[in-house]
């Protein structure tokens, strides 16, 4: 995992690299973006819902970031700036294609309390070996993709790409409390959907081999 949760490491290197790139050492851009390739692609995929479009959006976002690098402000994190460029690129494309109706960002329905998790007395452990099964991976992938946009983008950045709450808030231009509430709802929605599905596909005799708490 390239973006460590809450880590500030590498910022100085990034700032130095960006200065050098702007001074003409453009080849350094390849190194600058390597740690961010996955999170940019995942963000693009969570919007575009297919690999080809997601790859296109990711490439375009990296190109746009390069062209706009002089506008990057050092007080921001490069990674979160990249994500916001990716998000704009993905949304613009969806708008142009009009293939997917855009969900309004103004109806967050953010009250806590509104989500009640499934009651799962008998489901506690799913072995991580379950991920060797394509069936399990695709259940999880579909559940993440099916989250409403406002929850999905928060979940992708914070829980899948392991950005901090603050970085997620910055990348999505949201408040920290909004990120926390959406994250909680996303997690509860996923649990409610996935727990019964996983219980159905994961063999019972394997259930207690993982997480002995």
């Amino acid at each position, binding site marked *: *995992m390239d973006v460590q949760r809450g880590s500030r490491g590498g910022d100085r290197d990034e700032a130095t690299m960006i200065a050098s790139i702007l001074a*003409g050492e*453009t*080849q350094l*851009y*390849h190194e600058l*973006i*390597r740690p961010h*390739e*996955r999170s940019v*692609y*995942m963000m693009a*995929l969570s919007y575009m819902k297919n*690999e080809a479009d997601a*790859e296109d959006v*990711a*490439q375009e976002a*990296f*190109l746009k970031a*390069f*062209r706009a690098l002089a506008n990057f402000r050092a007080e921001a994190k490069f990674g979160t700036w990249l994500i916001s460029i990716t998000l704009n690129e993905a949304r613009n494309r969806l708008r142009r294609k009009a293939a997917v109706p855009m969900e309004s960002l103004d109806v967050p329905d953010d009250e*806590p*309390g509104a*989500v*009640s*998790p*499934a*009651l*799962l*007395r*008998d*489901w*506690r*452990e*799913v072995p*991580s070996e*379950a*991920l060797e099964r394509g069936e399990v*991976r695709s259940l*999880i*992938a579909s559940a*993440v993709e099916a989250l409403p946009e406002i929850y999905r983008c928060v*979940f992708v950045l914070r*829980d*899948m790409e*392991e950005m901090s*709450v603050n970085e997620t808030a910055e990348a999505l231009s949201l408040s920290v409390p909004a990120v*926390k509430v959406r*994250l*909680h709802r996303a*997690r*509860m929605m*996923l*649990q409610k959907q*996935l*727990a019964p599905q*996983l219980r159905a596909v994961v063999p019972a005799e394997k259930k207690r081999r*993982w*997480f002995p*708490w």
Partner: protein
Amino acid sequence: MVIECKHVWNHISGYLDGTLTAEEQVMIQTHLEHCEICSAILDSARNILVLTADDRVFELPVGFSERLHARLAAELGTVAGDTPPSPM
């Protein structure tokens, strides 16, 4: 202090992330020790996080990085005007 399960559910994310106040933390912890349902929900939520954070669930397409850097090399060469695209 006795709290309802429903109240605990609203704090599950905070509990997992360690962002609750000390008082909330104790309250939730005490409830979890006695409530099978809430501790099962907590474990389920934690498992979902572990599974979704696994890079195997969403993989980068084969050759993604190579194609990206090839395109960038072409672009950077053009924009900078001084460095020919490097063969990736």
